[in-house]
């Protein structure tokens, strides 16, 4: 496929597609996400679609047929009872639970737009996101209703639906789980929000309409499906506009990369990452739903022990995670004693995977841990290591089909072969823009190329390697130091659990490298680490200061927040 706009004259990665990845994908045949998902729900009607597993092993499940029927009812509720219209925004704010897929699919069937919202947001962040997106309705989990009460009046939200983590569980189990959360853990706050309980909303929806609603029948690829907020860790959160077409394309791309190890209707996927995050939303929820998989939802994987029963009680064949999640699992006794036996593949993304983690995982589990790369603005998947053939560890693999990548310097010129440059992506999965922010959009998408802010290198065979975030790069006496590299070296030391590296201003060298380390073994000393770094790192890359921590600040999906460490150091 020749493209005059691209700089890399050929697409060297195409040779790695081999027989098992389709180079050319045809335009997704379904006009919208609900159309595709309804087809899957009908095909796999009697199979279990979702199972939520509590830390003690208690669980509740929904079959495809039930998810389909309930989401029809929710669509009727939104349109007929609340009077919403096509294109109206509806926010979802809950941890992984059975209500999430029901509401998500219901909103899409109603022709409305989903606004995924992190349940751990502060009231101020909630106010910003609901106002910015113009959400008219909100489905929120009862755990956080008290935060909503503080800001509800300052947002455009007119209708609130409340759900519970054990919603749709068997009656006795639901009451026990709810009772323990409310009276024992005191996790469910009192509030005065005027709200409808989700089961009541579904009842009202069933009365308002029957049979298949057809609100979604007019949707096309260009219509908006999802407002996915991003940039919350760097400043004001912006809503990435992902259309039905963006997501359908990305689902097809993910399917093309995974088809070799995916048996439709037979997979069991562990979802410990939050569904409100685009990675789990696209990969775990939508891709696996279309493949007729059973999705094991873990409401909160922290501490990681909460995943134990989900891992033990189900024959997990796929899972997704970030480096910190895999690392945490590898440090759990129960996991090491009985590693899961049925895993076909695990996918890692969100932040750079460390060699030591990937190696230890593959040795213990005996199945590949493939690393990928994506971002909210790309629905999210851009690159993945191929599941067949040779995999190069420490890389993000090759672009998914129909995706083009170029590496550019600060003047937007394509860098020479082998040089590092900012990774730019072009493909059908790239978002339409940032919601109501044309200037931000113009800065990010130039001539159809999405500028990611990540610095990458390309091997001659078309494999990409993320060097680091452009803005995390440390400049020591004029030399570029990438925190990822230093963190990787540190975490290779057997007594290190995890590490974060930041740049701190220095009179001598402009910036200097500081490392924050969480010990795996209490006996670890700074001297040992200094010696260890001296063996693998040249002088300017070695940390000038090493500090031991009990833990490191992380985002909800477990990315280490270097910025927060920097703020702590500079602000204190």
């Amino acid at each position, binding site marked *: 496929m020749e493209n005059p706009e691209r700089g890399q004259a050929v697409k060297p990665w195409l040779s790695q597609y081999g027989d098992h990845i389709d180079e050319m994908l045809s335009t997704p045949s379904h006009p919208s996400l609900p159309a595709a998902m309804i087809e899957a729900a009908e095909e796999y009607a009697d199979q279990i679609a979702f199972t939520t597993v509590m830390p003690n092993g208690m669980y509740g499940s929904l079959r495809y047929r039930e998810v389909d029927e309930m989401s029809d009812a929710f669509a009727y509720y939104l349109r007929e009872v609340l009077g919403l219209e096509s294109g109206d925004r509806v926010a979802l704010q809950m941890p992984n639970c059975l209500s999430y897929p029901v509401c998500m699919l219901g909103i899409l069937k109603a022709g409305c737009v989903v606004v995924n919202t992190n349940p751990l947001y502060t009231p101020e962040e909630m106010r910003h996101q609901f106002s910015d997106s113009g959400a008219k309705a909100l489905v929120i989990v009862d755990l956080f209703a008290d935060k909503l009460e503080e800001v509800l009046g300052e947002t455009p939200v007119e209708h609130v639906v409340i759900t519970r983590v054990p919603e749709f569980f068997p009656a006795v189990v639901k009451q026990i789980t709810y009772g323990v959360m409310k009276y024992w853990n005191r996790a469910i706050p009192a509030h005065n929000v005027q709200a409808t309980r989700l089961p009541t909303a579904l009842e009202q929806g069933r009365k308002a309409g029957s049979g298949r609603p057809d609100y979604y029948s007019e949707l096309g690829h260009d219509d908006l499906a999802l407002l996915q907020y991003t940039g919350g860790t760097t400043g004001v959160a912006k809503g990435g506009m992902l259309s039905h077409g963006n997501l359908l394309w990305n689902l097809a791309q993910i399917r093309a990369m995974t088809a070799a190890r995916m048996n439709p209707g037979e997979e069991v996927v562990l979802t410990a990452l939050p569904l409100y995050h685009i990675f789990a939303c696209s990969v775990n929820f939508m891709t696996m739903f279309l493949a007729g998989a059973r999705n094991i939802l873990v409401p909160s994987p922290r501490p990681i022990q909460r995943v134990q029963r989900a891992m033990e009680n189900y024959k997990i064949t796929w899972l997704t995670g970030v480096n910190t999640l895999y690392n945490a699992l590898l440090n759990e*006794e129960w996991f090491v004693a009985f590693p899961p036996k049925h895993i076909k593949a695990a996918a890692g993304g969100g932040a750079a995977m460390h060699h030591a983690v990937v190696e230890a995982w593959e040795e213990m589990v005996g199945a590949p841990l493939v690393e990928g790369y994506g971002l909210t603005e790309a629905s999210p998947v851009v690159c993945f290591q191929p599941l067949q053939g040779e995999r190069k560890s420490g890389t993000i693999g090759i672009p998914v089909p129909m995706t083009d990548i170029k590496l550019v310097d600060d003047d937007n010129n394509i860098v020479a072969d082998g040089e590092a440059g900012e990774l730019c992506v072009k493909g059908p999965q790239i978002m339409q823009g940032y919601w109501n922010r044309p200037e931000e959009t113009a800065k990010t998408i130039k001539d159809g190329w999405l500028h990611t802010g990540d610095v990458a290198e390309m091997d001659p065979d078309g494999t990409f390697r993320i060097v680091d975030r452009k803005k995390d790069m440390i400049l020591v006496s004029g030399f570029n130091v990438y925190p990822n590299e230093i963190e990787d070296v540190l975490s290779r030391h057997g007594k290190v659990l995890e590490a974060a590296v930041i740049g701190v201003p220095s009179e001598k060298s402009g910036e200097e490298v500081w490392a924050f380390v969480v010990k795996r073994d209490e006996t670890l000393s700074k001297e040992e680490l200094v010696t260890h770094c001296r063996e693998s790192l040249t002088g300017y890359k070695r940390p000038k200061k090493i500090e031991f921590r*009990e833990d490191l600040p992380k985002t909800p999906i477990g990315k280490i927040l270097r910025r927060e460490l920097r703020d702590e150091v500079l602000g204190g």
Partner: protein
Amino acid sequence: MLTELETTLLGVMMIIIMLGMGSSLTFKDFAIALRKPQAIIVGMVCQYGLMPLTAFLLATAFGLRPEYTIGLILMGCMPGGTTSNIFVYFSKGRLSLSILMTVCSTLMAIVMVPVTMSLYSRGLEGEWAIPPDQIISLLFVLLVPTVIGIALRKFNANVGAVLELMGGVIGVIVIIFLLASWIPRNWDLLMATGPIIYACSIGLGLIGFGLGYFLAKNLWLDPIRARTISMETGIQNGPLAILIVAMVFTDERQQLVLLIPILYSMFIVMTSTVICLWYRKITDREVIARDNAKIGAIRET
């Protein structure tokens, strides 16, 4: 005396308690725990080493009469009680360690209770002896629901978790039920009982809390594990001791032997509550201290 109805009810409830206890664990949990068995070994040493010895020394020191001695030693030789798991949870201890210790000591009971009983009750042959074969057969019967519970947990986690909860709740109900029906009928006996008997009944639990803590602490276990082992050691399976006495002594001797197990069960609920609140406070303080240390480290940089 326990009435026939009370004895039968106690037996049925004991079966449910054991079913619930089994349901709190899977075979994998055992296998995992046995990979790093330090804490379990320390716990078992407390359970079957320190507690029977404490009971024996108390009885000897106070020169208890044989009918009380046998009750006290039996109490000391009992495995851990399921109520300890609830107290450990509330005291913010290690619930997994607590459950594991309870189940391990219950499974080992079939060997350890007869062995420790015959060791410490030598000289009590005759009318006050508890024949080991009777203990073994009773414990064997109770092993069956325990194992069924473990299997149920594996078969269906929802059934397992509901049984686990039921077992814990019924454990408390049994004690309340027995006390409520037994105390009024035996008020005169309680009034006539001397302070030494009370001291032994209360002291067994309290000494158990203390010894468990110090042994665990001195064997380099962290404070949270040490506090968990402490509660596990102090809290014995009172209803089981009562059931054994009720099955073995069917005449008026029962009344006398039952006294200490019943007093122990009554007071352990109170002492455990106090200890639990105290441990909870310590745990909270440690968490705050750790947070402060972190903030301090940030300020220094």
